[in-house]
């Protein structure tokens, strides 16, 4: 379904504006956008109230900006993505058309839009597709308008309410050209951003490439011929059942485990021939390996930074900013061994990020992290990929992968059985259903009839 030229009426009384929304996505949208449930739509003032609420979240994000981009920019301001051959005039083609309850929408020129938090109307619409790319020639493209509706209370209480889900734009149907700039209003959910990202990065250069990566322990094959291509700016999910070879594969990618055969290269640098420069580009968070936990948090961060070849002044500044971003600033002078499991995960995450890697390889980063911190970390990682970095995470939480990742690979018994954008992999059904299909775990419930037969 082409979304080109479609202008969705925004309607405060809550009639569902779009029938194409996928129910599971709409649910996620509500959940992902934490503030939506408390929202009281108000034709005149609701938007600015919402804007005020989002403004309250911003200082937290600002701290994460500093290390992902060379120059700290306000996240809401348009800022160039590290995409090749950026075209500077593209912004002027961007037009938002928003229609609110019978009244003609203000038409905004995106380039003129100031901080959207200050300009309530700007929150109502987001234009992501500027004109003219090399691939599609110079024909001006119609603007794609992603409008997020103001959800009415009715829509919230009714579980069947169709909420507009921009996530349904799939790459196949709309091969949108890579964009030059993005604007990231806060009320767009993770899902929206990840789907949109999948389209945007489709032509980015490949950052990490594995070819025929295999690991055999005697007769046991832990990973078999794993071929992954991770593009710049990609948020890549890696899922599989327990013991499928996720950790083995990620260990080989980060250079912690020598593969039996196959190669890993990051920006053309081979992990095993040129391991110093390859490892400098990787930030690793292994699962279930210890930290030097007799050090304090501050010492551990300093240690990791210096080992990665940073200057001590840089390390100190970044350590301070990272600890604020991750909420660890009060724990820095305590021993890491006294941290809770979640805090240890966070300090390890900070240690993985401190040297500004190009790709973060995170094995189960959200295990034992509380939901608020998980949201902060997700936020940081999204900011990181927007800045052109890539993230490869493994997780047991399919829901999380579907929500935040643009690409996903499913590994079963050491073999990658499916990979691609999330839309390609799930192919019409939810990712969880696809995952269950591919891993064949449904079969396992046979033979447990006695468990269900307690009626008598």
């Amino acid at each position, binding site marked *: 379904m082409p979304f080109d030229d479609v202008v969705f009426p925004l309607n405060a009384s809550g009639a569902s504006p779009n029938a194409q929304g996928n129910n599971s996505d709409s649910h996620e949208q509500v959940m992902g956008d934490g503030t939506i449930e408390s929202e009281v739509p108000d034709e005149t003032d609701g938007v600015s109230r919402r804007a005020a609420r989002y403004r309250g979240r911003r200082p937290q994000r600002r701290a994460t900006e500093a290390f992902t981009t060379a120059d700290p920019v306000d996240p809401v301001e348009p800022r160039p993505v590290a995409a090749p051959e950026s075209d500077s005039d593209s912004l002027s083609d961007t037009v938002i058309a928003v229609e609110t309850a019978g009244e003609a929408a203000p038409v905004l020129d995106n380039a003129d839009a100031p901080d959207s938090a200050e300009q309530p109307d700007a929150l109502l619409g987001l234009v992501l597709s500027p004109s003219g790319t090399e691939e599609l020639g110079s024909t001006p493209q119609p603007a794609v308008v992603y409008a997020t509706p103001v959800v009415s209370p009715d829509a919230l209480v009714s579980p069947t309410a169709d909420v507009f889900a921009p996530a349904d734009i799939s790459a196949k149907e709309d091969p949108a050209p890579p964009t030059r700039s993005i604007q990231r209003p806060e009320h767009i959910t993770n899902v929206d951003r990840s789907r949109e990202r999948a389209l945007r990065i489709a032509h980015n250069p490949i950052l990490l490439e594995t070819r025929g990566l295999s690991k055999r322990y005697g007769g046991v094959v832990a990973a078999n011929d794993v071929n992954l291509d991770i593009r710049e700016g990609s948020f890549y999910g890696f899922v599989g059942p327990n013991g499928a070879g996720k950790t083995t594969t990620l260990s080989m990618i980060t250079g912690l485990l020598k593969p039996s055969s196959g190669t890993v290269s990051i920006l053309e640098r081979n992990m095993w021939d040129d391991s110093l420069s390859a490892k400098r580009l990787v930030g690793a968070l292994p699962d279930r390996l210890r930290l030097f936990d*007799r050090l304090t948090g501050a010492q551990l961060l300093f240690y990791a930074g*210096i*080992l990665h070849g940073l200057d001590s002044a840089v390390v100190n500044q970044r350590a301070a900013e990272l600890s604020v971003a991750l909420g660890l600033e009060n724990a820095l002078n305590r021993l890491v061994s006294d941290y809770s499991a979640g805090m240890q995960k966070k300090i390890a995450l900070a240690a993985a990020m401190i040297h500004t890697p190009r790709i973060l390889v995170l094995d189960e980063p959200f295990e034992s992290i509380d939901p608020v911190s998980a949201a902060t970390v997700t936020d940081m990682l999204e900011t990181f990929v927007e800045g052109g970095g890539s993230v490869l995470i493994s997780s047991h939480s399919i829901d999380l992968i579907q929500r935040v990742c643009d690409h996903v690979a499913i590994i079963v018994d050491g073999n990658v059985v499916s990979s691609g954008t999330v839309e390609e992999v799930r192919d019409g059904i939810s990712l969880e259903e696809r995952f269950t299909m591919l891993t064949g775990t449904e079969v396992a419930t046979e033979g447990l009839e006695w468990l269900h037969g307690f009626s008598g």
Partner: protein
Amino acid sequence: MVARILRLKLRALGNSFRVSRKGFGAFLIWTLLGVILAGATVWAGLNTDLRIVSDFPELITIAGSAILALALVIPLFMRSSNLDPRQFTLFPVSKTAVAWGLGLSGFLSIPALLLVIGLAGYLVFWRENSEALLIAGAGAVLMLVAAVISASFSRGLALYAFNSSRARDFLNVVAAVFLISLLPVVFVLFTVDWSSDGGEVLNNVSDSLGWTPFGAALSAPLEFIAGNQQDAYLKVGIVGGYAIVLALLWRILVQAMMTHISRPPRTGIARSGMGWFDRVAATPAGVIGARSLTYWMRDPRYRVPMAILPFVPFAMMIPLAVATMPWNYVSLVPLPVLCLLLSWSVHNDVALDSTAIWLHVSSATRGIDDRRGRLLPVLLLGAPLAVVGTIVTLLFFGDWSALPSVIGISCGVLLVGSGVSSVISVLFPYAATRPGDSPFVQPQFSGSPAVLAQLSSLVITLALIFPAGYFAVLGLLQDPVYHLWALGIAVGTGLIVFALGLWGGGRLFDRRATELLAFTEMVD
């Protein structure tokens, strides 16, 4: 309530004979050993040919003292928490009743029952003299009471006061140091000429022990038959007083245990600043050195061996002195041994880091930086040790012409040992105590060749320093000019081995980094 506790204890006693119980084998061996000892006492008492009382009265006093002393010390290290007074806190029962119940239940234990048998055998010695038998009986009963209560008391004290893992480690260190300091006593015992002055030694020892609460009980009847009736009654009084004091202490301890909760281990002690990290260069080798220093000071797995280390060479001096080596030569021994042990202490450094070593692997830390950093604490401690130790050694030795040898050998041992350790720790890592475990805990995994690594690093170091040592000995015995030779050879060998060790260890680390990580994952 008292009867209930006693029934509980009786059942526990019965259950300790269940074959399927964990630790039954060890229990059986110790019990059999005790039975044999107790039986031997009875046999000795019944066997009229053995005139123990008339010929070796001292042995009785010494054995009795040993039993009471062990009853006080051993329970400190047995931390079984069965029938702990704290278990009765929630029941409506007075603390006195708990103290009585648990105190009496102590009689229903294997050691107490064996002691009863042994004391019965001891009483047989006195069957011919009814008055002495009476005093012996009173002493034996009081001794039994004292032994049982002191065992309860020490066990409770261990559970109450030495509860935290840090306090337990402290206790273990004290015990280790104590055992090492017992070595001289053992050597003295071995060197006494028992045929001529053995009796006199025993006499002196038992005379002094007889007036302590430990030895008084069993020496009272000896005093009686020797004609010192007053002393005999006094000694019985001493044991009785000891038992009463113990009983009072036990009552107070029960009260304390039931009304106080132990403070949770203090976590989250804030430490300001970066510690050693502020004092080193901000380079990989520098921070690895700072991290090693921090670990040496904070991690009990480094700290405890370091606390014991200084006592080892002094214990080694004893046999040499006993072997009639002149004291001033013996004084040359501790310094090189300390240097050797210090440099040897890093021979399994990588395994001690456990899987945390991944950070070095994933940051592509150069092996030589890793090796250099880890040797920083050794050199930082070793350099002042060599200098100060040389001065102290020569003060004792008395001949300052040996200065080049002493400082040369100690520096050489330090450098050679460091070089060898830095290769061995990469080449033959073996399962080490895991981070966070007590240093007295054995590693879970023991399939790797610990002995090979330990011995090979020591033997190689000694072999490499041997030429220098040979010249040092020549300098001591023949011509002081060889001392200079010793200095040159020791320092030369040391520097070469140190450099080669760093370089080789670094190369090996670079090549084997992932294998080392896989090894630590396996043994973790």
